């Protein structure tokens, strides 16, 4: 009898722990930041880009760019309203190197307060989802999840950002325009 009581208590505790875990996942995304720490394919990817910029470093970058040319000043004005920039991008030597489960874990963090404003899927298996975190009239965070057969990219911008300004940036930095024409080979990999 006592043993059954103990077993029941253990099950109750396990259920409670699961409930707490499940409810804490969207909470991680509160404030516009999602946890990308578990997304790691650096051991298997042929190219890994990982950017983590927040707090004083982001302020320092903004201050530095304010003193540069007009392009940099425009970027500085964009990032002044940001609290964090987090990017993880992995390029693989072939398809099937990343798991849908990892992607689902990222998307699970995007809670109900987020709005998915874009979901694009094409025949090449390219899947791009863009989520916004609205706060009044402004956007308080953006999550971009771009999954291709041999590439996985997650971008999380925390804070207010102008999406139109962001779109215009692609032609800057001396980098030629990329990916605007889907009929063209976007990255020379398709």
């Amino acid at each position, binding site marked *: 009898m006592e043993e059954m009581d103990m077993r029941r208590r253990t099950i109750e505790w396990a259920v409670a722990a699961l409930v707490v875990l499940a409810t804490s996942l969207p909470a991680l995304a509160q404030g516009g930041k999602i946890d990308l720490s578990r997304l790691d394919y650096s051991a298997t990817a042929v190219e890994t*880009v990982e*950017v983590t*910029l927040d707090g004083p*470093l*982001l302020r*320092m*970058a903004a*201050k*530095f*760019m304010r003193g*540069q040319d007009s392009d*940099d000043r425009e*970027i500085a004005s*964009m*990032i002044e309203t940001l609290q964090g*920039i*987090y*990017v993880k*991008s992995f390029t693989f030597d072939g398809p099937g190197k990343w798991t849908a489960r990892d992607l689902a874990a990222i998307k699970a963090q995007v809670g109900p307060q987020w*709005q*998915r*404003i*874009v*979901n*694009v*899927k*094409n*025949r090449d298996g*390219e899947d*791009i989802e*863009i989520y916004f975190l*609205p706060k009044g009239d402004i956007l308080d965070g*953006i999550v*971009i999840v*771009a999954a291709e057969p041999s590439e996985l*990219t997650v*971008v999380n*911008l925390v804070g207010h950002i102008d*999406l139109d300004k*962001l*779109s*215009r*940036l*692609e032609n800057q*930095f001396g*980098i030629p325009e*990329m*990916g*605007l*024409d*889907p*009929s063209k080979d*976007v990255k020379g990999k398709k």
Partner: protein
Amino acid sequence: MRNLERGLQSALGRKPAPSGFADRVLEQLDDTRARRRRRKSLTAIVSRVAAVLLVGAIGLGAWMQHQQSVREMREAEAASVLVKLALHIASEKTNIAREQLSGGGSSATSNRNGGDGHETTND
């Protein structure tokens, strides 16, 4: 009365200095002067050392501050490169999605206006 006068004369009367008294006085005077000179030179040395240390400390502080600002500048420059890289990736993905939405061989759902969204298939 006479005894008193005699006593006073004997007590206050001029007496010859003991032998070697003048030499001892002069010697003591020289000692005092030498001590003063030594003290002055010691003070000068201490002042010079203090001045050198002060100038050194100011110089070291300025150099450390310069090194700190150079380090911060390098960190800021590196951070700005990362900012550009991150925003470029975000911009690239946004533009691909935007282009697909405007109709290029894709199935796309846009919910931009906060409504239920619409779906476009261009396969």
